[in-house]
């Protein structure tokens, strides 16, 4: 009986050899395919359990940090002052992925970015746990909080830019949300938060209104039209239409000034007065006189129609619309019809004028810092375009200073000259019955600008149909400027 037993032994050996050969095939030859398969959740989980880099503000205040935990994922993302900074940081969730900068700079924060490659190799050799890189922002946390407080109770956005460099000093959006709940390691907490934030009546707290939403700019767009006129050879004394109301050719719908007020002498007015008093008739006819090509060209110099704008958050494209017929061009001239801008771009318009016509690329990320705190990359101010001649920009600035003088609303600052423009943008299918959006774009000090802001309050906040940019948005903008200039 021993012979068959020995053969059984050989068969057993063969079975073990087959298992070993197959295990070799699976674990050595095919291993990489399986490891990298998109269905393999381990890669994702590994990233989640790696020590993620921090997001820190311009003054080194951490706004997104990590905390060590004892659970499976080992590190918990924490956000100091979550709601105020959420439009900047975004969120980091094991269930719902990432948003905001957490998404845009994910490779860097989780450490897989090529710029951290050398570091990763040394981690591999030394057996150190890989860590993500950190990013330092241009955000001034005090200003960010001031802007967030300014928007308390209303739906809207505040963006502040340093005109000379394009650094974004503040970028807020309300209503906001607390990304800490989405970062929780308890899936139930995450789920509850996610469903609450995405409920139909939640007021879209996860929408970053500064860059993801586009709004009709209303009268603030007159800065672009005025720029086109100045570039076309006009001066601040050029006479423009001053009638209380006009009917653009090809339509019976009248286009009136605000409250049918008279500009200049009732027939003509200077360009400066038209801007200061925000005369609709003046800018509607001006737009038509310039024509859509010149309007588009000037707008593009400010950054309209730039589909690739990233800060590195992708920015929704601002546009003038098709301007298909003459009435459309009239309406475009006063920032209505199909004109749409993001609050960020509207702030860029103000910042460009403040920077004497030179448009700087907007920046949110200042430095990229390796886990060993060495600086991997540093963003330098980047000139993108010459939107206006410096003299033309100065003229426009003077006109905006006059505009500020004509702007009502509280919060005026002592000892600071502000250059500004308000806007009250109608929207909706029945514009007369829909509460208008209130705008305020400004920069200060007018003589040597250090900050440009754009304030948008959706549907005029609580001011209802009577809302105007001056009443609703201007006090917020002035408070932000005051916080920045007074806070130093």
């Amino acid at each position, binding site marked *: 009986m021993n012979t068959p037993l020995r053969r*059984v032994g050989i068969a057993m050996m063969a079975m073990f050899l087959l*298992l070993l050969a197959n295990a070799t095939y699976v*674990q050595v030859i095919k291993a990489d*395919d399986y*490891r990298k*398969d998109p269905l*393999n959740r381990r890669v994702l989980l590994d990233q989640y359990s790696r020590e993620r880099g921090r997001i820190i503000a311009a003054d080194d205040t951490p706004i997104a940090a990590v905390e060590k935990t004892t659970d499976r994922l080992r590190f918990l993302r924490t956000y100091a002052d979550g709601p105020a900074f959420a439009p900047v940081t975004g969120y980091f969730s094991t269930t719902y992925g990432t948003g905001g900068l957490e998404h845009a700079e994910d490779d860097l924060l989780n450490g897989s970015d090529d710029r951290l490659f050398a570091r990763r190799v040394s981690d591999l050799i030394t057996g150190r746990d890989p860590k993500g890189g950190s990013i330092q922002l241009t955000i001034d946390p005090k200003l960010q909080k001031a802007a967030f407080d300014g928007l308390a109770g209303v739906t809207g956005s505040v963006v502040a830019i340093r005109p000379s460099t394009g650094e974004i000093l503040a970028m807020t959006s309300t209503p906001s949300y607390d990304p800490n709940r989405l970062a929780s390691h308890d899936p139930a907490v995450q789920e509850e938060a996610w469903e609450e934030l995405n409920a139909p009546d939640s007021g879209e707290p996860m929408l970053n209104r500064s860059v993801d939403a586009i709004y009709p700019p209303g009268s603030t767009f007159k800065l672009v039209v005025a720029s086109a006129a100045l570039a076309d050879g006009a001066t601040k004394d050029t006479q423009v239409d001053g009638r209380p109301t006009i009917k653009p050719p090809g339509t019976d719908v009248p286009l009136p000034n605000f409250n049918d007020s008279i500009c200049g002498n009732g027939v003509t007015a200077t360009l400066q007065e038209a801007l200061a008093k925000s005369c609709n008739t003046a800018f509607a006819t001006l737009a038509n006189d310039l024509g859509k090509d010149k309007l588009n060209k000037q707008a593009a110099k400010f950054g309209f129609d730039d589909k690739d704008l990233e800060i590195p958050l992708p920015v929704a494209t601002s546009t003038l619309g098709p301007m298909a017929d003459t009435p459309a061009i009239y309406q475009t001239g006063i920032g209505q019809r199909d004109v749409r801008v993001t609050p960020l771009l509207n702030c860029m318009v103000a910042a460009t004028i403040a920077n004497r016509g030179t448009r700087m690329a907007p920046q949110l990320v200042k430095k990229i810092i390796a886990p060993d705190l060495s600086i991997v990359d540093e963003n330098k101010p980047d000139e993108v375009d010459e939107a206006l001649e410096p003299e033309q920009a100065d003229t426009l600035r003077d006109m905006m200073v006059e505009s500020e003088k004509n702007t009502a609303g509280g919060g005026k600052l002592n000892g600071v000259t502000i250059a500004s423009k308000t806007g009250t943008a109608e929207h909706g299918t029945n514009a007369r019955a829909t509460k208008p959006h209130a705008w305020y774009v400004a920069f200060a000090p007018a003589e040597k600008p250090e900050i440009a802001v754009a304030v948008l309050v959706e549907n005029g906040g609580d001011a209802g149909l009577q809302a105007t940019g001056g009443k609703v948005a201007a006090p917020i903008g002035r408070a932000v400027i005051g916080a920045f200039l007074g806070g130093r």
Partner: protein
Amino acid sequence: MGSPVTGADGTPLATANSTSPGFRPSTKRNTAELFMLAFASIIVTGALILVEANQEQELTMGIVWLGLSFMGVMTVAHLAVRRWAPNADPVLLPCVGLLNGLGLVMIHRIDLAMEDVKFPNGTTWSDAAPKQVAWTAISLLLFCVALKFLSDHRTLARYGYTFGFLGLIALVLPGVLPSFIAPEINGAKIWLSFGAFSIQPGEFAKILLMVFFASFLVQKRELFTAAGRRVLGLDLPRARDLGPLVAAWAVGVSIMVLQKDLGSSLLFFGIVLVLLYVATERAAWVVLGLTMFCVGAFAGWKVFSHVQVRVQNWLDPFADPSGSGYQIVQSLFGLGTGGLFGAGLGGGRPDQIPEANTDFIAAVIGEELGFVGLAAVLLVYMVFAMRGLRAALSVRDTFGKLLGGGLAFAVAFQLFIIVGGVTKLIPMTGITAPFLSKGGSSLLANYVLVALLLRISDAARAPKAAPAPRPQQPAIADQFTVMVERPK
């Protein structure tokens, strides 16, 4: 073979030992066993420490106590072997101890991983490790009892038919009982459930039926060795001798039908085939058996959708990676991610692998210990099976040879079926990995199997009784002449 059984096998060996000079003292082997058990305990404790450290659990002296108590339990088993089977192979128990200990560590490790997981129905994971520790203690108790009361394995042969009857009942019971007592779990009806307590009678049937077949075949082997017709170079058995083979085939197919348990069906068929082959020493039985297996398998594939699903998932698991192919796909991901050296004990993601602590425990080992670790575990099994086979080869009675060979093959084949399934070498069928997987019945039955193997090995290695004094030989010249068969 069939050499006459030496009567001294069953008698208390201690006396034989002490009286017969020239044999290695058994204490030396036993000490080797103790050292190997200590080594296994150190590996198991080390594995536990690694798991705890990697899972960020607090390292306390408790772990050392756990390791020491594991060693204590194994020492008790060792003392039982030393007392009741002193000549047994010293390698068998340490192999089992190592596998069992590693299994306990892995089950505990999977408990840790599942702590954070919340199931969709709101329930949470209940730890399996404490239960398995209790089962280990019970199994070792039964192991000692079996060694003590079964002083001679040949006693079993006398109760062959009783065991066969019990085995059949145990095997078929879950299939025919109503589902409140024999619930269908994961598509297989192989459990008997009594409240919180459930057993898998098939695990015991495996051993009971092996004892029956071995004793039956030993009694009737003359019938099977008688040649039938010779067809195509094969000595085909006579039709009336086919009975046991047909019976085995019928049992295998009926398991497949009644219980949807493809793994056990395959296991039984393989065991019967091997026993038949070893008993008859005729390859014809193997050929015939494999033919019948193929017919049965093909018919099963044609008729049963669950067989088709298994085959489909084997051929291409990625056709439905989140549905029916999910288990095998996740297993392959785990194995592939583990790669050559593994993610480290406690560093893998066993929560991603379904049924991690039972059917797919080999995948978890492959992920955390890599190919190297998986191969090491497989080799421990191989050493165990080969040492078992060696006991069968050297034991002097045919029943012992047949039973020992069958037991050794059963462990190897069971491992082949489950690990082959997990690594996509063969279609996946749900059975346990002996000693490693969670499951009380499996552990209990396999420890009884070890006790039987140790008993056979003890008989095989026991020193022969002191030879009876030789009768005075007559002078050569006075001898008879004998007819000598001419060498073929």
